[in-house]
C-alpha cells in the first residue's frame, strides 16, 4: 500500500453533495495528478462531518486543517499551496464568529470541542463505501468478540448493563427489548432497523447510514445472534437515495467478505439483511405501522399488545430498533458496558445525536453526552442565534415534542428531564427559534404536519387534530377568542388520552407546551389582535407616522388595493379595513414613515 503523507477527507453526505462536493473530489484528484502527487496525497470521500452550515467540507489530516465552503475552483489552490508547499489556504479556514480569527485546525473549533462522537465515530472519518476502512477501525470486531466469548444471553446482559435506551424517541431500554424477543420462541424471528426518519428537520439516521452503514449492519447481526433471528430488514424511506445506495453497497461488500450470509466467520450463525422501502409516511415510524407497511399492508398502527416482540413481521417475534441505537451497539462491546455506563446521566446513558436546525449559526449534526445543557448545545456548539437575535425557544422531539424556553437552558438534557420539562427527546431534531418566530404559528405548522400525516384510522387523531389546526388558523387570522384557548387545551388532552398510537398521543404536544410557556402570546393574539413576533400576517397593522410623512404619494401609487388616501404634500392615512398587509407601502416609503406593528 502506498505511503501517503496526507489524506484529504471530502464530505460526501447529502448536504455537501448538493453543493458540488463530487465536483470537488474530481478536481482535487485531477490537480494531484497534474502535480505528480499521487503517492503523497489520497482523496477520500467520507460521510457527514456534521458542520453542514459551512459545507462543503474538506478536512486534511494529519494536521486537521478544516476548510469550509470549498468551491470546485478552490481545489487547485488547495493542492498547490497546502499539499505541495505546506501553506494553509487561510481564506478557506473556518472563521470563529466571535473573534473573527481563522481557526487553524478542527481541534480548536468550538463546534467540536464539546462533542463526544460514539454513534458518529466513523462519520467524516472513513469512506462509507469501503468495508476495508471500517474493518481497519475495529469493524466487525465486536461481533467477532461475541462469537468468541459470549452466549446470546451474555451478549444481551452486556447491553442491559450499558444502560442503552432506544434512540428513536421512546427511550425503551434496548437490552430489555432484546431479552423479551429472545425469550419468545419461534421457527423464524426478525431484526428490523427503523430508518424511517420522518420528523421535519431531522437527519441523524440518514447521516449515520450515509457515513457509516457497516456499523448498523454489524449491530443488526449482533442483535440477530442475541435474539435468535437469521433475517434482518431495514425499513428505509425511499427519499433517502444516497443512504440506500451506500447501504446496498455495504451489504454487498459484507456478503462478499462472508460477514453476512451462512456460517459467519465459522461461528455457525447465519444472518442476512434485506431492504424494504417506505413511501415516507410519518406514522410508519411507529413500530406496528412500520411492520404492516413492510408486509405490504396499509401503514396503520394496531393496538399493543401484542408487541412486535411476540407477534411482529409476518406474525413472528420481531425486534425493532432505530438506526442510531444500532450504531451505538458495536462500540459497547468493544469498549465494554462499564465504559459506556459512565457516560451520561443516571438514567440516560451514553450520547445523543441531534440535528441542529432553525435560527442557529452552526446548523448541523452533533453528538453530545447526555446531561449536557441546552445552553452548551445552542450557544457553545451551535454558535448562538443567527444575526445576533434573541433566543426564544427550541423545539425538541419534532411534531411529537414540545418547546423549551429560556428557563430550561440550564436543564441537563436526558430522556427524563426533557419529559419533565414538557417536551421529549424524540429522535433528536432541535429546531431553534428566535424573537421573530410566533409560537402560535409554530404550533400551527406542526399541527399542519400531523394532520397531513395522520393515517386516519382512529377518530381522535383524524378529526381532533384537524379541529386543533382549524382553531390555530383562526387565532393566527386574528379571529380567535379567549374561549378558543380553553377549548384548545381540553381538546388536546382528549386527543392525547384517546388516540390509538404514538402519533395521536403526542401530536397535541406542541400546542400544550406553547400554551404553557407562551400563554401571553396566545392572549395577545385573541385579545389585542396582536402578534408580538410580528409574523402573523393577518395581525400586522400598518399605520403612517404623520410627522414623518411628506405626502409624496409614492405609497398611494404602490398600494394594490387603494387603502392609502391623502392630499399631496399632506400626511396620508391607511384604511386598516382595506389594507391586505402586503407591505408594498413599507418597501416604497423613503422616509420610514410607515409603521408596522
Amino acid at each position, binding site marked *: 500500500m502506498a505511503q501517503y503523507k496526507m489524506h484529504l477527507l471530502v464530505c460526501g453526505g447529502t448536504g455537501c453533495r448538493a453543493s458540488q462536493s463530487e465536483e470537488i473530489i474530481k478536481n482535487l484528484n485531477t490537480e494531484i495528478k497534474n502535480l505528480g502527487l499521487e503517492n503523497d496525497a489520497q482523496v477520500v470521500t467520507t460521510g457527514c462531518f456534521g458542520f453542514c452550515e459551512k459545507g462543503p467540507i474538506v478536512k486534511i*489530516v494529519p494536521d486537521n486543517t478544516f476548510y469550509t465552503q470549498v468551491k470546485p475552483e478552490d481545489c487547485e489552490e488547495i493542492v498547490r499551496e497546502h499539499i505541495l508547499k*505546506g501553506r494553509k489556504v487561510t481564506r478557506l479556514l473556518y472563521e470563529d464568529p466571535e473573534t473573527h480569527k481563522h481557526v487553524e485546525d478542527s481541534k480548536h473549533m468550538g463546534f467540536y470541542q464539546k462533542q463526544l462522537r460514539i454513534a458518529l465515530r466513523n462519520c467524516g472519518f472513513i469512506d462509507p463505501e469501503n468495508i476495508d476502512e471500517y*474493518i481497519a477501525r475495529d469493524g466487525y*470486531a465486536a461481533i467477532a468478540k461475541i462469537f468468541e466469548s459470549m452466549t446470546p444471553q451474555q451478549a444481551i446482559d452486556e447491553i442491559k448493563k450499558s444502560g442503552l435506551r432506544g434512540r428513536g424517541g421512546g427511550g425503551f431500554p434496548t437490552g430489555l427489548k432484546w431479552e423479551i424477543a429472545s425469550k419468545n420462541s419461534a421457527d423464524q424471528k426478525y431484526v428490523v432497523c427503523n430508518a424511517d426518519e420522518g420528523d421535519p428537520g431531522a437527519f441523524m439516521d440518514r447521516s449515520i447510514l450515509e457515513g457509516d452503514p457497516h456499523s448498523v449492519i454489524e449491530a443488526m447481526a449482533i442483535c440477530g445472534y442475541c435474539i435468535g433471528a437469521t433475517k434482518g430488514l431495514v425499513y428505509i424511506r425511499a427519499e433517502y437515495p444516497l443512504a440506500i445506495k451506500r447501504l446496498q453497497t455495504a451489504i454487498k461488500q459484507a456478503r462478499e*467478505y*462472508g460477514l453476512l450470509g451462512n456460517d459467519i466467520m465459522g461461528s455457525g450463525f447465519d444472518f442476512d439483511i434485506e431492504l424494504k422501502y417506505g413511501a415516507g409516511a410519518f406514522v410508519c415510524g411507529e413500530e406496528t405501522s412500520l411492520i404492516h407497511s413492510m408486509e405490504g399492508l396499509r401503514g396503520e398502527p394496531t393496538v399493543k399488545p401484542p408487541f412486535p416482540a411476540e407477534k411482529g413481521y409476518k406474525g413472528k417475534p420481531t425486534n425493532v430498533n432505530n438506526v442510531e441505537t444500532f450504531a451505538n451497539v458495536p462500540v459497547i462491546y468493544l469498549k465494554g458496558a462499564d465504559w459506556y455506563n459512565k457516560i451520561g446521566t443516571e438514567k440516560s446513558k451514553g450520547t445523543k445525536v441531534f440535528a441542529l436546525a432553525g435560527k442557529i449559526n452552526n446548523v448541523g449534526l452533533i453528538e453530545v453526552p447526555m446531561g449536557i445543557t441546552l445552553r452548551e448545545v445552542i450557544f457553545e456548539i451551535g454558535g448562538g442565534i443567527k444575526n445576533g437575535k434573541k433566543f426564544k425557544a427550541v423545539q425538541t422531539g419534532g411534531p411529537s415534542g414540545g418547546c423549551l424556553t429560556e428557563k430550561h437552558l440550564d436543564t441537563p438534557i436526558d430522556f427524563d428531564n426533557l419529559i419533565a420539562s414538557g417536551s421529549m427527546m424524540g429522535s433528536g431534531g432541535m429546531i431553534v427559534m428566535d424573537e421573530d418566530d410566533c409560537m402560535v404559528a409554530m404550533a400551527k405548522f406542526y399541527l399542519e404536519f400531523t394532520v397531513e400525516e395522520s393515517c386516519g384510522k382512529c377518530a381522535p387523531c383524524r378529526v381532533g387534530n384537524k379541529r386543533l389546526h382549524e382553531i390555530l388558523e383562526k387565532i393566527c387570522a386574528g379571529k380567535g377568542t379567549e374561549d378558543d384557548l380553553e377549548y384548545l387545551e381540553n381538546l388536546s388532552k382528549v386527543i392525547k388520552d384517546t388516540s390509538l398510537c404514538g402519533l395521536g398521543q403526542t401530536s397535541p404536544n406542541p400546542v400544550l407546551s406553547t400554551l404553557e410557556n407562551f400563554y401571553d402570546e396566545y392572549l395577545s393574539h385573541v385579545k389585542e389582535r396582536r402578534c408580538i413576533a410580528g409574523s402573523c400576517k393577518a395581525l400586522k397593522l400598518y399605520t403612517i407616522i404623520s410627522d414623518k410623512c411628506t405626502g409624496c404619494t409614492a405609497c398611494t401609487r404602490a398600494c394594490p388595493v387603494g387603502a392609502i388616501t391623502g392630499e399631496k404634500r399632506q400626511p396620508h392615512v391607511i384604511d386598516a379595513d382595506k389594507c391586505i398587509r402586503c407591505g408594498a407601502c413599507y418597501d416604497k416609503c423613503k422616509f420610514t414613515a410607515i409603521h408596522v406593528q
Partner: protein
Amino acid sequence: MNKIKSLDDLRKMKQSLEHGMNIREKSNSPESLVQIRVAMATCGIAAGARTVMNTLIEKIEKEKIPAVVTQGGCMGYCYAEPTIEVKVPGKDPVVFGNVDSKVAIEIVDKYIVNGELIDGVIPTNYQTINEQK
C-alpha cells in the same frame, strides 16, 4: 476477495489494513504524539525536504514510533534548509537545520527515542501564533 472465514482471518485483515488508516487515526490525538513538521516551502523542497519527509515517515512506520509527520510552510531558516521542527509531548519544540536523510534518522533515534540532543539545533526565539492567547 477472499472470504473472512474465522476470527483470525478478521484480525489478520485488520492488521494489514490498519496501516492505511494510520495517519487519520493519529490526527485524532496529535497532542499525545511526537509532532514532526517539515518545512516544505520552495527553498525547503529545493534542498530536499520531500526526501527527508519520506525518510521520516518510513522510519517512524518501521520503528512504530508514536509520531505524526506534517508539512509546514517556510520557517525562515532558508540558510539551513531542509529544516524540521520536532515537538515531543510535554517539551518545547526544537528546530533542526540542514537535515538530510541521514540526520533525519539520527534525530529519530537519538532525540525522539532517547531524548539526547544532537548537533544542528537552531535556537528558536519566536512565538507561534498558536501560543499567543
